[in-house]
C-alpha cells in the first residue's frame, strides 16, 4: 500500500523566537519588544503539558514533538513508509488571533521561508501547505505568487477569520491559488471561539476542550456550503479545497440538504446550475483523520460510500498530535480499491505527486 499523509504538523520551537532568522532586523526589533509567542486557546487539551502534541513524539535532542525534521523522518515517514507528507503549521494558523495585519503577513512569509529552508530542503518527501495571513488577501495573493510555483509547495493553508469562505473578501487568494494550481487547505487553527478575530462557533462559546473539539465540523460545513452557493467554483472552476481534520460523517447530510434546498430555492442562486453536491464532489476533499467511529463497523464503509470517499478522501495521520491515526491501525477493513484511492491516489492526483520522491 502506497501512502501519502495529507496532514502532518511541523513545529517551530520558540514560536516567533524561532522565526527570528527569517525576519528583517526591523521586524526582529518589533517582536523583541513584545511577547514573542502566538497565543493559545485558553481551553487546553487535558493531556500531558496541556498540548495537542504527543509526548512520545519528542525528539531525542529536545524541543517539541514535530520540531525536528530528521526525527520525524525516522519516527513517522520511515516507520510507516510514507511517500509524501503534506505539512501545515498550526502555529501559522494562530496568526488569525493577531489584530495587526502587518505582523500577520510578515510572520506568514517568515513561516513559509522557515519551512522551505528547514524542512523542504531536508527531504523531498516533505511537501508544504504554505501559509497566508488572510488579514490582507491581496498580500496573501502576492505571497502565493512569490513561492507557489516551487516544487515543494502543494497547497495554500488559509487560517480562517470570522468570514465565511464564499465571501468575496477571499477571492484574491482563490484567484492566485487557482492560477498556481494549488488547492486551498483549511484546518482547525485551535483558536476557534477563543479570539474575536477567529472563526466563531455556532450558537455560542464552548466551555471545555472536549466541547470545542467536538464542534470543529461546524466550521467546514458552513465554509463549504458558503463557497458552493456563493458560486466560488463557478468563478474559479479550477479551484480545489481540502477540509483537513474536520471529520466527514456530516458531509453526506450537508450534500443532501444543499441539494434539497437547491431544488426549492435555486432561483436565489441561479449561477448554481446543477445539484450543489456535484460541485462539492468535484472540488472538495476531506482528510481521513480522525477516523470516525460509528456504532457498528459496517456503518463506516457506508458513510465512506455516501461521501464518495473514492474521490474525496485523503488519508492523513495528524502526526504528531494526540489523535494520530496510523496506517497500520486505521481503515484496515476497507475494500482494496477504495483504500488505494484514499491512501494514495486521491492525494497524488490532487497534489501532482504521482512520482515517488527521491529519498
Amino acid at each position: 500500500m502506497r501512502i501519502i499523509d495529507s496532514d502532518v504538523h511541523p513545529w517551530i520551537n520558540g514560536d516567533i523566537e524561532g522565526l527570528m532568522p527569517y525576519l528583517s532586523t526591523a521586524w526582529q526589533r518589533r517582536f523583541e519588544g513584545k511577547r514573542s509567542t502566538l497565543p493559545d486557546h485558553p481551553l487546553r487539551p487535558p493531556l500531558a503539558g496541556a498540548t495537542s502534541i504527543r509526548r512520545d513524539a519528542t525528539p531525542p535532542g529536545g524541543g517539541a514533538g514535530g520540531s525536528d525534521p530528521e526525527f520525524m523522518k525516522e519516527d513517522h515517514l520511515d516507520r510507516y513508509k510514507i511517500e509524501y507528507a503534506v505539512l501545515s503549521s498550526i502555529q501559522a494558523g494562530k496568526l488569525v488571533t493577531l489584530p495587526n495585519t502587518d505582523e500577520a503577513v510578515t510572520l506568514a512569509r517568515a513561516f513559509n521561508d522557515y519551512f522551505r529552508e528547514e524542512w523542504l530542503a531536508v527531504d523531498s518527501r516533505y511537501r508544504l501547505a504554505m501559509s497566508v495571513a488572510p488579514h490582507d488577501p491581496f498580500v496573501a495573493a502576492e505571497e502565493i505568487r512569490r513561492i507557489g510555483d516551487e516544487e515543494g509547495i502543494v497547497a495554500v493553508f488559509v487560517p480562517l477569520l470570522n468570514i465565511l469562505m464564499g465571501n468575496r473578501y477571499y477571492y484574491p487568494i482563490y484567484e492566485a491559488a487557482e492560477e498556481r494550481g494549488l488547492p486551498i487547505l483549511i484546518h482547525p487553527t485551535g483558536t476557534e471561539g477563543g479570539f474575536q478575530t477567529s472563526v466563531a462557533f455556532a450558537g455560542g462559546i464552548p466551555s471545555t476542550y472536549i466541547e470545542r473539539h467536538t464542534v470543529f465540523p461546524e466550521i467546514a460545513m458552513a465554509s463549504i456550503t458558503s463557497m458552493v452557493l456563493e458560486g466560488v467554483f463557478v468563478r474559479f472552476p479550477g479551484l480545489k479545497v481540502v477540509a483537513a481534520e474536520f471529520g466527514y460523517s456530516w458531509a453526506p447530510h450537508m450534500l443532501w440538504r444543499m441539494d434539497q434546498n437547491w431544488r426549492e430555492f435555486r432561483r436565489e442562486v441561479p449561477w448554481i446550475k446543477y445539484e450543489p453536491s456535484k460541485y462539492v464532489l468535484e472540488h472538495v476533499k476531506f482528510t481521513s483523520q480522525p477516523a470516525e467511529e460509528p456504532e457498528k463497523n459496517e456503518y463506516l464503509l457506508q458513510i465512506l460510500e455516501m461521501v464518495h470517499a473514492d474521490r474525496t478522501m485523503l488519508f492523513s495521520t495528524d502526526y504528531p498530535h494526540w489523535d494520530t491515526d496510523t496506517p497500520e491501525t486505521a481503515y484496515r477493513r476497507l475494500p482494496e480499491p477504495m483504500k488505494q484511492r484514499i491512501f494514495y491516489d486521491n492525494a497524488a492526483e490532487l497534489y501532482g505527486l504521482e512520482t515517488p520522491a527521491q529519498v
Partner: protein
Amino acid sequence: MEHCVGHVDEIPERDALIVDVNGRSIGIFKVDNRLYAVNNICPHKAAPVARGTVGGTMLPTSKPGELEYGLEGQVLKCPWHGWEFNLETGECLFGVSGRRLKTYPVGVRGDQVYVEA
C-alpha cells in the same frame, strides 16, 4: 373526455380556478388570455400546486451575483416547496427534477371553458 368547467370570466388572471372533474382536482389558469390546465397535485409531495403563484423566475446564469429574470407568466411555483413548473408542459424547470406536473388540453367554445381530462 371533454368537460365543461365554467364560464371563462370565472377564471381570475394568474390565479387558478380550481374545479372538480370526476373527483379529480384541476387548476385552470388564464395568463394574458391564454388558458392552461394542470393537475392540482404536485408531483413532488402532493401539495395543491394550483394554489401556487404564476410568474417568471431567475434564469440560470454563468455569472455569480448577477440576476436575470425571465419566463414571465410561464412558471407555476408550488405553494409548498417552491418547485417551479412550466405552466404549459408541466416540466420541472432547469433539471431540478425529472418529475412532471400533469397538464390537460383546455380551450374555450363560446364563453365556456372545456378541459380534456
